[in-house]
């Protein structure tokens, strides 16, 4: 690793070294709130570094990219980490989380996500993915007195370990077929002229299975609702946004280099896309638990992202990256509102907990409404522009049935999002006192709401940026 490599890695180094430093600091200075605040600052610095510094090389040690695409996602995931920590301060203090460990883990997860998004080698992909998955095992079960959290952590661990096995095996098979880990050369095994095609296909199947588990595509989704429900709300937000978005960013990098063999994967991905949209939509309809509803809704949204991936081409890739950014803003915001409503005694997960809150807490009620309408794809919101761009790309690529199905799924989805809005604004308030929210939480939610509306009204700058940086 040369000096130039280190410079190129600087934004991620800030995250990783900051993580280590705060972990040590936490051992002598056990002040949870302050440590998480410092963690937010570190992540914010990393965002600035990723935006401001132009790396001298475009690839680091043949493992990770350092081009504009990787930097974009580094900035995005560092921002997500910063907001997650900001949201966790009161939540963590009330549950006596040990601040040093928590902050270190969140920052480390962001570093893993950033590495995964820019992976240019199958080894890099494995490293990045495992870096943040391992961290998430701990974070999900971080609340020691909560049995649901422990159960969720265990579930994620067992399923995740199986997926990791598949991932490693798949990578090994792909390596066998071509003799290299580096992308896109490692993908040439799918070439019909290559004698190793069956091995490569098997490897790809295993790789997709493992990644499908991470982004919870149907039929690999069964862990999702339980884990979301059991995990602490801010961690669930990180899990729903960063961990899924980073995998999709890596998938985009993988498939962009796939010149031959793409046609073999299309039917499989098509099926996963249809199943995710259908099953996710119908399961979300009957959920009375907000976190479970958001879990199923995230499954549907990953179906949309897969539609964009299938559409391929510059329009499809631009749509995918824009959608990931939009999805991150609105989902993180929704979990942020849930976090800020939670009390020391428990989270406000159930629909009944939110009765009439739109009037009692108008700002956060309005913010949650914005996020939900955006998730449903109602204009003017980031979610609408994202879906609109995806439908353009999908129809352009000839996936008419997928687009129609996507539209119908989004129609049905309006029903379950509206249920929450109805509870917020159209039912009498109970006398359950929910937390008034802290200033940091308010700032994080406001930023997400601003991004959700802003990207819906003026999406042109981000779309232009993304069009320049996609591989």
């Amino acid at each position: 690793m040369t000096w130039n490599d280190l410079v190129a890695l600087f934004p991620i180094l800030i995250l990783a070294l900051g993580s280590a430093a705060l972990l040590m600091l936490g051992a002598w200075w056990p002040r949870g709130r302050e440590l998480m605040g410092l963690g937010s600052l570190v992540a914010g610095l990393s965002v600035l570094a990723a935006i401001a510094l132009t790396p001298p090389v475009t690839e680091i040690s043949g493992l990770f990219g350092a081009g504009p695409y990787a930097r974009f996602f580094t900035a995005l995931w560092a921002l997500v980490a910063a907001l997650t920590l900001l949201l966790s301060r009161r939540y963590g203090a009330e549950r006596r989380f040990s601040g040093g460990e928590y902050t270190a883990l969140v920052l480390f997860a962001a570093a893993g996500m950033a590495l995964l998004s820019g992976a240019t080698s199958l080894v890099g992909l494995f490293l990045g993915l495992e870096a943040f998955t391992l961290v998430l095992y701990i974070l999900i079960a971080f609340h020691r007195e909560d049995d649901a959290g422990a159960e969720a952590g265990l579930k994620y661990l067992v399923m995740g370990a199986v997926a990791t096995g598949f991932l490693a095996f798949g990578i090994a098979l792909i390596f066998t077929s071509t003799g290299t880990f580096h992308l896109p050369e490692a993908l040439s095994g799918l070439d019909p002229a290559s004698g190793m095609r069956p091995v490569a296909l098997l490897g790809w199947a295993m790789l997709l299975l493992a990644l499908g588990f991470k982004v919870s595509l149907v039929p690999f989704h069964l862990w999702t609702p339980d884990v979301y429900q059991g995990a602490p709300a801010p961690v669930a937000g990180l899990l729903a946004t960063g961990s899924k978005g980073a995998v999709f960013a890596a998938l985009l990098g993988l498939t962009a280099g796939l010149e031959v063999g793409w046609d073999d994967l299309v039917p499989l991905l098509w099926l996963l896309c249809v199943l995710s949209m259908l099953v996710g939509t119908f399961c979300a309809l009957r959920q009375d638990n907000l976190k479970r509803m958001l879990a199923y809704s995230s499954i549907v949204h990953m179906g949309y992202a897969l539609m964009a991936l299938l559409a391929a081409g510059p329009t499809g890739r631009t749509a995918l990256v824009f959608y990931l950014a939009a999805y991150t803003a609105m989902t993180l915001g929704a979990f942020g509102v849930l976090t800020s409503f939670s009390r020391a005694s428990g989270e406000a997960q159930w629909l009944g907990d939110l009765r009439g809150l739109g009037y009692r807490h108008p700002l956060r009620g309005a913010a949650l409404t914005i996020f939900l309408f955006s998730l449903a794809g109602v204009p003017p919101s980031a979610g609408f522009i994202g879906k609109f761009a995806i439908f353009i790309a999908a129809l352009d690529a000839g996936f008419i049935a997928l687009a129609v199905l996507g539209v119908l799924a989004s129609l049905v989805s309006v029903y379950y999002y509206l249920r929450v809005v109805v509870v917020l604004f159209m039912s009498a308030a109970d006398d359950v006192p929910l937390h008034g929210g802290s200033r940091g939480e308010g700032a994080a939610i406001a930023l997400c709401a601003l991004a959700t509306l802003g990207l819906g009204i003026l999406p042109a700058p981000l779309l232009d940026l993304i069009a320049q940086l996609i591989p």
Partner: protein
Amino acid sequence: MTEFTHIPWLSILIFLPLAGALLCLVLWRREELCRWLALAVSWGVFVLTAGLFAAFRAGGSGWLLYEDHAWIERLGVRYILGLDGMSLLLVLLSGFLMLVAVLVSWRVRRHTGFFFALLLLMEAGILGVFLALDLVLFYLFWELMLIPMFFLIGVWGHERRIYAAIKFFLFTLAGSLLMLLAIIGLHLLHTAAGGAPSFALDNLRGLELSPSLEAWLYAAFLLAFLVKVPLVPVHTWLPDAHTEAPTAGSVILAGLLLKTGVYGLLRFGFPLFPNAAAASLPWLALLALIGIFHAAWIAYLQPDAKRLVAYSSVAHMGFVVLGLAAWNQTAVEGSILQMVNHGLTTGALFALVGMIDERAHTRRIDELGGLWGKVPRLSFFFLFFSLASLGLPGLNNFAGEILILIGAFQTNPVWGATAFAGVVFAAAYMLRLVQGVLWGAARGALFWPDLEPREGAVLVVLALLVLWLGLYPAPFLAPLREPVADLLNVLPQGGLP
């Protein structure tokens, strides 16, 4: 004139209520202030629309005002607004009815700031629908109207308000989402044919489409618009939404939201898909005639006065669609005029039913009765607008209906003759309403206050307009002449039965 047209009047028209809505949201705790702010903003918008009408009352071919700016260039979406004689009339109606809606909501006591913010937001959405010429911008405003109405029904509505609000939202969204796909399809076909990526109406017109493709795309547009009109059999959301909505919500629903469907057909559906549209006209006429009779029959059986008026809306919109289906100068002008008429009379009737409900706390016809003896002034207006609604000559609905009927006779005498019978049906249910509410023995000994000055002023102005449109509709038909003539040239001639 050039100085005048350089000012972006159309953007001002849309952003003024939007700014008012945001201000109301910010000041939501100061209810009295919000109320006056809403009145001031809606008054300002009305003055603007009236000024535009005065400036362009002579009409003319092409766009009277036009704005075009880049918006999302990468996707080919532009911010294009345009005003012609047809939108001029509907914009004027919007400005006026929103003012009425604000005035009839003066007594709203719950979450007042929020209420008026939603009204103004809806005004921005409706004006945007009538002015947008880029299909994506149009879609955006089209959806933007839904959200405030959803809250208006759901928060301030009556007993079954949540059911009605969700039904309303899902029905309209079902139509419009498929329209969104059709819009994208049209855009891609235009690009594939060698055009620059665009969603602008002017660019997408005249695209060569294969007949089956044109039929599919047209069907998606048609569904979105007919749900909104609403035409039988996709009308079932309307009685629920109308009945459960607060008074202002019903006034806007009947007066403006239903008009966006017909407007969408005229502005987008017919010009974009002329061949499919020409083929669909007889079917539209059939559905319109079924609607006139079906809705009239159901209206006659309603025990609830508000529901009766709601079904009368479906019947009246049947006439409007029949005018479109007849597709000649007289009938189409009549249809557009009838939209204005229906907005005024039905808006007034909903306001009156709301006023009665505020006093009697019931809308059931069998629990009302004898109002003439108790509240003569309110009853006079009730009778007046009921007579207007059933098409009494000299009042506004007659003027619109007679144009539609004459036009329908010219195209197909059977349509005209059948629709004439529909007018008799209208008389039947309206007279039953009048008989049940105004005449007979007074029930309940409570003393009711008659009209207060605010209510009286609204009704007097509405009544004067009803008389004006009934006796001398020419000023309102003048700006329509050339846009309608241009529209008629769009469809291939001779394709009619």
